[in-house]
C-alpha cells in the first residue's frame, strides 16, 4: 500500500494498485464511514443550522433591511438631500421632499419609499448619507411577502424598523 501513498500530479501515471481501483476504493470507503460514525456519535456537533428554530449569527457589519433614524422628537433625521437616491445603483429609493416647519432645518421627506425588491443591499445609501439618517444595521434578512406591493416600504415603516421590534 506504500505505492498508493506516493503523490503524483493529476494526469500522471497511476501506480499499479491505483489502476486496479480497489485499494483506493476501500480507502475512500474508510474515509466516508469515518464521517458517518463520527456524525452518528456527535450529532450535536453538526454544523447544520436548524433554520426556523435557530438563526445564524451574522457580523454586526452585516447589511440587513434599512431603517430611518429619528430625531429626539420622533421626526426623521433625513433632510431629503437626495444623496442616497442619487448614489443608489439600483434606483430603489424614492423621496419626495417637503419644506420643514422649523426654519433651522431646510427640508424633510414627505415620502421616503424603498423598493426592497430592487435593492441590492450594497450599502452605498448609508455611506452617502450626510446626516446618518439611513442605516442598514437591523440585521433583518428574512424579507418575505406575497405581493410586490408589500416590498415597497414607506417612511413610517422604515422609521419603526428595528430587528428586535422595539421603536427607536
Amino acid at each position, binding site marked *: 500500500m506504500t505505492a498508493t501513498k506516493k503523490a503524483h500530479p493529476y494526469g500522471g501515471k497511476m501506480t499499479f494498485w491505483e489502476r486496479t481501483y480497489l485499494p483506493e476504493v476501500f480507502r475512500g*470507503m474508510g474515509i466516508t464511514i469515518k*464521517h*458517518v460514525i463520527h456524525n452518528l456519535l456527535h450529532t450535536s456537533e453538526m*454544523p447544520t443550522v*436548524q433554520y426556523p428554530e435557530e438563526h445564524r449569527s451574522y457580523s454586526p457589519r452585516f447589511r440587513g433591511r434599512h431603517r430611518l433614524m429619528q430625531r429626539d422628537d420622533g421626526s426623521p433625521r433625513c433632510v431629503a438631500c437626495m444623496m442616497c437616491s442619487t448614489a443608489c445603483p439600483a434606483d430603489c429609493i424614492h423621496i419626495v421632499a417637503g419644506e420643514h416647519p422649523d426654519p433651522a432645518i431646510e427640508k424633510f421627506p414627505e415620502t421616503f419609499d424603498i423598493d426592497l425588491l430592487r435593492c441590492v443591499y450594497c450599502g452605498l445609501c448609508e455611506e452617502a448619507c450626510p446626516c446618518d439618517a439611513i442605516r442598514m444595521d437591523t440585521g433583518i434578512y428574512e424579507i418575505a411577502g406575497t405581493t410586490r406591493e408589500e416590498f415597497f416600504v414607506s417612511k413610517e415603516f422604515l422609521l419603526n424598523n428595528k430587528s428586535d421590534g422595539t421603536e427607536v
Partner: protein
Amino acid sequence: MELVVSSLLKIAFLLTVILGLVPVLIWAERKGSAFIQDRTGPNRASVLGIRLGGLVHPIADVMKLLFKEDFRPENAHRFLYALAPFLVFFIALLTYAVIPFGDFIRIGGVEYQLVVADLNVGILYVLAIASLGTYGVVMGGWASNNKYAFLGAVRSTSQMISYEISMGLSIIGLMLIFSSLRLTDIVAGQGGAIWNWGFAMQPLGAILFIVAVFAETNRNPFDLPEGESELVSGYHLEYSSMKFALFFMAEYTNMVIGAALITTLFFGGWNIPWLTRSVIEGHAGTILPVHLVIQAVVMGLISLLFFRRAARERDKFGDARDREPGFMGVVTALMALGAAGSFALKPWAIGVDAASIYATLLQVGAFVGKVVFFCWVFIWVRWTLPRFRYDQLMGLGWKVMLPLALANVVLTAIWLAIV
C-alpha cells in the same frame, strides 16, 4: 392447493420485505449521504411529532408523488411511455422467485422450502430476468422522445451488454465448485465454517460479480444511464408522479436483488457461520436465552439513552417534537421488557418443533441482515466514488473485467481438476 397457499404466503413475505425495504433504503440513502457529507439529512416530516430520524419522509414523498400531475410529453409514444415503468418494476420483482431466503420451515411435521420456485437453472433464470430490466429502461428513454432520455437509454444498453458478460462469467467458477445451477444447492454448499462461503473460494469471482452487479443496477460509480450531471437525469427524465416513483422504486428493488444475489452466491445466503441448523436445534435451550438476554440488554440501554435525551431536551423545540425521545424510549423499553418477559415461557426448555422454527427464523434473519448490509454497501459506495467516464467504463468492462473473469474460469477449472 397446499402448494398454492404456501407459495402465496412466501410471495407475500418476500413482497413485504422488499417493498418494506424500499422506503427504508430511500431513507438510508438520504440519511447516509447526509452523514457522509457532514449534514443532518431529513428530519422535518413528523406524525404527531414522531419523526423517527427522518423515516417519516418517505411517507410524505409518496403522498407528494401520488398527487402530482402525471405528465406526458406531447410527442412521446403513448403506449410504450406508460408501459416502461411498469415493465421495469415488474421485472425487478420477478428475480426474487428463485432466491432462497431460508432452508425450510417445519410446521406440523411438513417441511416447506423457503424459496418460491426452486428452479434447477436458478442462476440462469436470474441472469435472464435481470437483463430484461434494461428493456424497460430503453423503452422509457426512447418513448419519452427526449434526447437526454434517449442517450441514457443508449448508455444503459451498452453498459448492460458490457457487464452482463463478465457477470455471467464471474459466477461460472462458483457453478464449477458447487456443480449446480440451483441456488438452494449453492447456499446449502456454503454451510458450516465461514471459509466455505463463496467469496473465500472465489475471491476474484466475488469481486468481479459485485462490480458487475453495481453496473447492472445502474448505481454509482456506474450510474451513467442516469448521469444527472450530464444527462439531467437520464432515461426517466420526462417521467413524473407515480410513473417516476415506479422507476425510483425499481432502482431500489434492483439494489435489493443485487444485494440478495451477492449474499446468496458469495456470502452464504441464509447460513450463519458455524451455527448450522443442527447446532442451533441441538443447543436452542442455550442460544435462545442468550439471544433474549442480549436483546433485552441492548434495547434497555437504547431506551435509557432515549430517556436521558428526553430529560435533557424537554423544551428543545417547544412543540410536539419534544415528545419524540420519550416515545422512542417507551417503545424500546417495551421491546426490552418483551424480551425479558418471554423468560416466563421457559426458553431454556424449548421444544423440538419450536427449536426448528427458531432456527429457521434465525436463518431468515441472517439472510435479511446480510441483504441490508449489502444494500448499505451500495449506498456507501455511491456517496464515496465519483462516476466513471464513459470510455473508462467501457475499458474496465471489456479490457479488465472480461479477461479476469475468463482467467478465473480457467484457473478454477484447473484447480478443480487437480484437487
